[in-house]
């Protein structure tokens, strides 16, 4: 008799999803799916709104990475306006996007992943949370809290709000940076370096104890895509996209926001509200690819900042060729956080960073525009159409989590097949299956453009639909 194991919802994610694992009559895993069960809606209710409202509207999709939505949306609007924003505005936006990346990665690493990493996959689920980490490793807990505050404080200093700042607008930003705020940010940087060094040191010490997980946590060849600069260094806000294949060869380069929809398609699967992005010339699912920290570090040749450069070199030694296991997303996040702090320090040293001219103005000069930026979890794409009065007539958003969707599903299947034998599983085993999804740090609220919460229930269901067993957490 075949059975289905359901993990619903998956815990310690941004949003609401579930996992089903289908077993055959012998209790072996036949298939597994990661379902996103929220319903989207932002694209529809933006229709009819003035296009210049879009950044602040779209930022409401997410409370973790609203800055990336602000930036991708503002860039789409600027394409409609046909304006180029002032240098200082571009630098300030870049800084805010990096600050968001640091706080989001800190949340992912310290709050969501570290309970598994520091307390163990099999540890008591009642203490396998941020409180348990704080009790067992207070210095790391303090570091995590401080790094999250570091990023949030910069966002607040620049945009007056920690979440959903209205400061990024079509044409630039609303307010220039003051000397006082610059100095406040500079004063926070030494502590941020110290906390990242602490986390990197701790992670490298324990990473070897997870060899078994590294081997089966979405560890397979795939394509990767990310923004990259012309000098092949990492980029989060500008640049163009590069897609590489599983051997690291460039498949397509210089994919601008305008060309994005020419080359990227979205497939639909019946089990998820999140679409499955793919590279059109290869078709679906062959054209599926991974995005986010692992993709970025696999694609770039250099970071462009000295401390992160050394860490990138070490990261690339984790595997011959590309680093394929999604477990290494955790490590990649720490490297990117280090880069983020270094780059923020560099931006603050820009001689024009205090310039007062931070916004360009224009009306509707095109009826269509697209913008892209790297969110912490990967590439984010906004594409809008307007009428001659600037009212929105159509919008489409391609979110990082949708682009990782196929890999997450394959990763869940790989781990489930490895760990579940003869239909038997423990809480620790199912936690590992969930942990595969956590490595991607998916933002399900973003991917469906809705909100959600995360308790957990695991259900074992027979082929006839009979509930055989159920475990509820939270």
């Amino acid at each position, binding site marked *: 008799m075949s059975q289905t194991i359901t993990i619903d919802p998956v815990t310690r994610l941004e949003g609401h999803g579930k996992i089903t694992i289908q077993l055959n009559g012998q209790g072996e895993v036949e298939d597994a799916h990661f379902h996103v069960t929220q319903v989207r809606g932002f694209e529809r209710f933006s229709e009819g709104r003035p296009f210049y409202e879009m950044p602040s509207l779209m930022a409401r999709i997410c409370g973790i990475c609203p800055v990336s939505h602000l930036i991708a949306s503002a860039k789409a609007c600027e394409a409609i306006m046909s304006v180029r924003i002032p240098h200082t505005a571009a630098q300030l936006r870049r800084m805010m996007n990096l600050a968001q990346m640091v706080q989001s990665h800190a949340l992912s690493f310290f*709050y969501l992943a570290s309970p598994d990493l520091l307390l163990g996959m099999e540890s*008591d689920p*009642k*203490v396998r949370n*941020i409180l348990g980490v704080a009790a067992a490793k207070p210095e790391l*807990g*303090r570091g995590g809290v401080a790094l999250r505050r570091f990023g949030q404080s910069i966002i607040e200093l620049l945009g007056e709000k920690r979440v959903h700042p209205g400061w990024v607008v079509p044409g630039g930003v609303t307010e220039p940076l003051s000397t006082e705020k610059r100095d406040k940010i500079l004063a926070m940087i030494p502590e941020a370096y110290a906390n990242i060094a602490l986390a990197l040191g701790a992670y490298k010490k324990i990473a070897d104890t997870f060899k078994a997980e590294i081997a089966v946590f979405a560890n397979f060849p795939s394509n990767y895509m990310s923004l990259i600069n012309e000098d092949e260094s990492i980029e989060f806000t500008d640049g163009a996209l590069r897609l590489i294949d599983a051997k690291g060869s460039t498949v397509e380069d210089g994919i601008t926001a305008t060309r994005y929809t020419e080359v990227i398609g979205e497939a639909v699967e019946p089990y998820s509200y999140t679409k499955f992005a793919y590279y059109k010339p290869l078709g679906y699912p062959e054209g599926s690819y991974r995005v986010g920290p692992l993709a970025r570090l696999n694609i770039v040749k250099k970071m462009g900042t000295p401390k992160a450069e050394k860490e990138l070199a070490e990261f690339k030694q984790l595997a011959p060729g590309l680093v394929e296991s999604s477990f290494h997303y955790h490590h990649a996040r720490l490297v990117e956080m280090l880069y983020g702090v270094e780059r923020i320090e560099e931006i603050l040293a820009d001689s024009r960073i205090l310039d007062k001219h931070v916004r360009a103005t224009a009306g509707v000069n095109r009826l269509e525009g697209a913008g892209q930026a790297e969110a912490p979890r990967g590439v984010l794409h906004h594409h809008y159409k307007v009428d001659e009065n600037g009212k929105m007539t159509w919008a489409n958003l391609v979110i990082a989590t949708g682009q990782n969707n196929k890999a997450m599903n394959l990763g869940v299947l790989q781990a489930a097949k490895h760990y579940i034998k003869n239909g038997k599983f423990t809480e620790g085993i199912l936690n590992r299956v969930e942990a595969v999804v956590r490595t991607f740090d998916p933002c399900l609220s973003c991917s469906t453009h809705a909100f959600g919460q995360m308790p957990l229930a695991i259900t074992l269901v027979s082929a006839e639909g009979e509930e055989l067993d159920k475990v509820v957490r939270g």
Partner: protein
Amino acid sequence: MAKRMADNHKGDELNPDLAEPLHFEKANCLVLACGNTLRSDDGIGPRLAEWAAERFRGDGHVRVVARQQWTPDLATDVAAADSVLFVDSSVDSVPGRVSLVAVPSNRGNSDARSHHLEAHELLGLTRSLYGSMSAHALLLTVGAGSTELGETFSDQVEAALPRARGVLEKTVLRFLAN
């Protein structure tokens, strides 16, 4: 939103400790409110915080913070305060009831998640991370009648507002009294 408050009384519940003057070296009070202003009575925390910010404007010893949820990063704010007044709505309480109770510092195991901690969990996290506890931590709640979508309060909570403000003011002043 507080869900687990001991709530056995018909009327408002005030902590008897408040009858005694509080003594600490540094008067540094944090008013930490929680709630969603788009969910009717759940917005009572932020509304009271807004009032407190105005009432204690210019007083460097009082800091007011309002959030939709209490998150782990607030541990640094709690650690820096000598006294903390948590302000929230309570779905387990009689609508409009104003309660002021001590926050237990430790309740053992927790189902804490990344984005939402209860007052006692935030205190426990603060102690784990910084080895410090605020000398006084109290939880002020107002029983919620409705948490449906909306930006207005139920009649019971609207009627309770003056009483809740009075308890908040008196509590902060006692915290500050030295």
